[in-house]
């Protein structure tokens, strides 16, 4: 069983602390994705699990062993690096068998494992080639093959798809997910691309500035983000935030005022907010409707229109806040012209000034008349 457990893990470089006491449990067989913006500490955390980065404080467990100070080779892990890190002077075959060879495995076992891995990854015809003779996708598959042959308990991936073009990235994403299904091992995957995180993960760990912001399934993070950062990071294009002012609040309901004087009543726990507080109303671009059939309607001037064929993104601003609206692809939109769109209150989130999300109740929200 290859559960991974981090207990109060801290990383310091001199006086600079980059990971601030992280606790995390990963169950055997889970596909866990560490996601966050550049510099949030996701790669450092992965490297500490791998044993490539010293843990300043705290403990790392793999299975029943406390492995905090163990060498990488003793940890039953294999890792795919962002740059693939294939040995340039070796053929694909030599690259894949190197790990088994240096640990003194018998030749027939090496041959059997390499042949099995090359079958899974369709590398059979490339075994005699050197890395420079391979395409990006092929190199990526060799890097994965190198990890498979070692049959590790845990696979670690450090932004493995970031050097590939968009099409290949989608293809490799599917291949890695299939591989996880096939092998059933624990996989920990680092990416800054939230689409990768959403599509591949059983569990996503969102990091910011060396802290875990939220751990949950992709849909938990999408529907119930704990704060404005997670809400903004998960989902593409990112969630819109409109400034609102609290009119009144209690444990079941928060009444807020939109910039244009519309009064909204949201069913959520408002005990921590007071009248006059400035909050952010979060709505995802895909939860807008063209026209005014939903609960709340707004009219904006169209700034930019991006037509992607299947869908159209409209960029504008409301009270100084940039807004992205996902609209139907057949909608005729002209830059500078007004556009009316609407949204349901049940799709909205309320965030406090310190970015915390107020829990939204599931009861049907009520649309109220404008205050003006």
């Amino acid at each position, binding site marked *: 069983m290859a559960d991974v457990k981090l207990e109060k893990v801290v990383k310091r470089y001199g006086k600079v602390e980059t990971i601030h006491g992280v606790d995390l449990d990963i169950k055997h067989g889970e596909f866990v994705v560490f996601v966050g913006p550049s510099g949030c500490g996701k790669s450092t955390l992965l490297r500490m699990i791998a044993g490539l980065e010293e843990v300043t404080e705290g403990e790392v467990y793999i299975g029943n062993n406390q492995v905090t100070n163990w*060498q990488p*080779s003793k940890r039953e892990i*294999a890792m795919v690096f962002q740059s693939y890190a294939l*040995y340039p002077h070796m053929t694909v075959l030599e690259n894949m068998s*190197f*790990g088994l060879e*240096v640990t003194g495995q018998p030749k027939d076992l090496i041959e059997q494992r390499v042949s099995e891995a090359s079958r899974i990854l369709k590398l059979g015809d490339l075994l005699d080639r050197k890395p420079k003779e391979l395409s990006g996708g092929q190199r990526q598959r060799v890097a994965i093959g190198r990890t498979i042959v070692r049959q590790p308990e845990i696979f670690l991936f450090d932004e493995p798809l970031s050097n590939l073009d968009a099409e290949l990235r989608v293809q490799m994403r599917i291949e890695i997910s299939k591989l996880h299904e096939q092998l059933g091992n624990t996989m920990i995957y680092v990416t800054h691309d939230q689409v990768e995180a959403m599509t591949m993960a059983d569990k996503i760990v969102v990091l910011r500035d060396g802290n875990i912001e939220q751990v949950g399934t992709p849909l938990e993070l999408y529907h119930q983000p704990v704060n404005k950062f997670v809400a903004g990071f998960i989902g593409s294009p990112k969630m819109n935030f409109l400034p609102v002012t609290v009119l009144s609040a209690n444990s079941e309901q928060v009444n807020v005022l939109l910039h244009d004087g519309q009064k909204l009543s949201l069913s959520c726990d408002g005990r921590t907010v007071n009248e006059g507080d400035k909050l952010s109303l979060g709505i995802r671009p895909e939860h807008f409707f063209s026209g005014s059939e939903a609960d709340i309607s707004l009219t904006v001037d169209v700034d930019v229109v991006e037509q992607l064929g299947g869908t159209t993104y409209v960029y504008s601003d409301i009270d100084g806040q940039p807004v992205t609206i996902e609209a139907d692809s057949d909608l005729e939109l002209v830059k500078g012209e007004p556009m009316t769109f609407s949204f349901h209150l049940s799709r909205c989130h309320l965030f406090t000034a310190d970015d915390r999300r107020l829990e939204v109740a599931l009861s049907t929200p009520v649309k109220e008349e404008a205050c003006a």
Partner: protein
Amino acid sequence: MFELRSWQAKAGFIALLLLIAFFLFFPVYWALSSAFKGNGELYQLEPTMFPSDFYLGHFLTAISEGNLLLQLKNSLLTSTSSALLNAALASLAGYSFAKFEYPAKKPLMLLILSAQMFPFGVLLISIYPMLQAVNLLDTKLGLTISYIVFALPVSTYMMYSYFKQLPNELIEAAKVDGASNIKIFYRIVMPISFPAFITVTLYAFMWSWNDLLYSMTLITSEENRTVGPGLLLRYINENNSDWGGAMAASFLAAAPVVFVFALLQKQFIGGVTSGAVK
């Protein structure tokens, strides 16, 4: 890089290059042509540009009389062994400086590089009694060790620069694969760093081969003499009149360096420029 646009500028630049090339190569040409001239043609009042007939006598004399072949053998032995030993030590030291963290790493590197700041003659003052103390004066081993002293600092720095730009991920991948530090060094790092290894080997080889000061001072017996002092003692003295022989012997002495350089120049250039472009 600058670009020459007009044909006049291009012509002027080419003329300048030709002039520099003439100053560099004319002495070499003159020595070579003199080596192929008979004594009559060599000492006539009006010198000829080209040998009238290719006289090989000077070459045969240079080889048959004196100890040129023995000296060449000694030079080859001391230069090759010092070059290889130097490259091996520089690789280990450079790798350690580039890829490991330990206390006093920077001062230690500065200390090694500081040996380069002293004139070689000054270093000789301390090397001489040290070799004397361990009975290595007038031995090929003593000379080999002394050659390493002046090639090692620069070689270490060259290897350090090369290793510094090797991606850490390669080493980390090998670590995760289960390779020890020694295995990583000789199975991954050194094969990739072959051009840099060749570069420092050639650098040290040429230093040693062309040395005069150390070999003149540390070697006194004829049996251990290397080619530089051998040529000097035989041909450059007040009684010498065998300029043809001197030129022929010089060319025979230079041949191994030219040969080795020609053989490995691709790797040498690759090694010198390897850090320039990512």
